[in-house]
């Protein structure tokens, strides 16, 4: 009877022991060290090409924007120049007599002020 109970106890304990032993897991550090050792952890993640593409896109957009801004500034300067030329033309059309009769203000200062205001 006692022999049978010892046998049963041993059997139960062995079952428990092996059950616990099966639960043992290899630490993740083993895998990490292994892949590092073999150079297998150079993972090309999906976002890396996306990131590079975004960088190129941002740089290109920046260049386009800069170019466009310069173009706008040039066009604006051209328009300003045209306005200034228009009023300069008007001033040059005034005769000396006009200046003498009406004074310097309506003859020169007013067109120049208008030109400046337009610019």
């Amino acid at each position, binding site marked *: 009877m006692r022999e049978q109970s*010892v*046998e049963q*106890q*041993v*059997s139960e*304990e*062995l079952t428990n*022991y*092996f059950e616990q*032993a*099966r639960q*043992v*897991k*290899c*630490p993740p*550090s*083993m*895998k990490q*060290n*292994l892949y590092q*050792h*073999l150079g*297998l952890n150079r993972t090309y993640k999906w976002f890396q090409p996306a990131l590079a593409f975004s960088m190129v896109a941002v740089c290109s957009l920046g260049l386009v924007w800069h170019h466009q801004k310069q173009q706008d500034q040039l066009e604006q300067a051209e328009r300003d120049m045209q306005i200034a030329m228009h009023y300069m033309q008007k001033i040059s059309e005034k005769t000396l007599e006009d200046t003498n009769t009406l004074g310097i203000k309506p003859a020169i200062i007013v067109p120049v002020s208008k030109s400046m205001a337009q610019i």
Partner: protein
Amino acid sequence: MSIWYKLQVSKNQHGLYALAYQMLGNQLEAEDVVQDAFIKLWERREQGGKYEKAWLYKVTRNQCLDILRRRKHAYEYQIAQVVGSDVAPSASDEVINDELSGEIGKAIKELDEPYKSLLVMREVNGLSYQVLADSLDLSLSQTKVYLHRARKQLQKSLEKAYA
């Protein structure tokens, strides 16, 4: 190729670790042994083969046996050093690095080879008889006989301990 390799690592790492841990009783050593086995697998990755599992267990077991042999030599060397001196080797020297405790751990540790490996690989890793036979270079019938003897031996030593 690296996908195949990573699959092998994921599939076998826990089983190999359990085997190495049961054989060596030390987590760090078990981790090193498993890592070495996978490095060897990487070196022969071009060869492939359908017995990868058996091969991995064989390499792991052999490495564990090497470590146990080295440990034994180191212990014998220690004994030889203290013979004649007043300092007696402590009990802890023998169980150095051994984290497995309890009657069962001790009884498994005391099993002879290939009984110990076979028992652990069958009971802990749940390997089939065929994989066991391939791992230990035994025939199928030899594997079954040895496994039966291993169980008997373990049962006997535990019954003695519990009696």
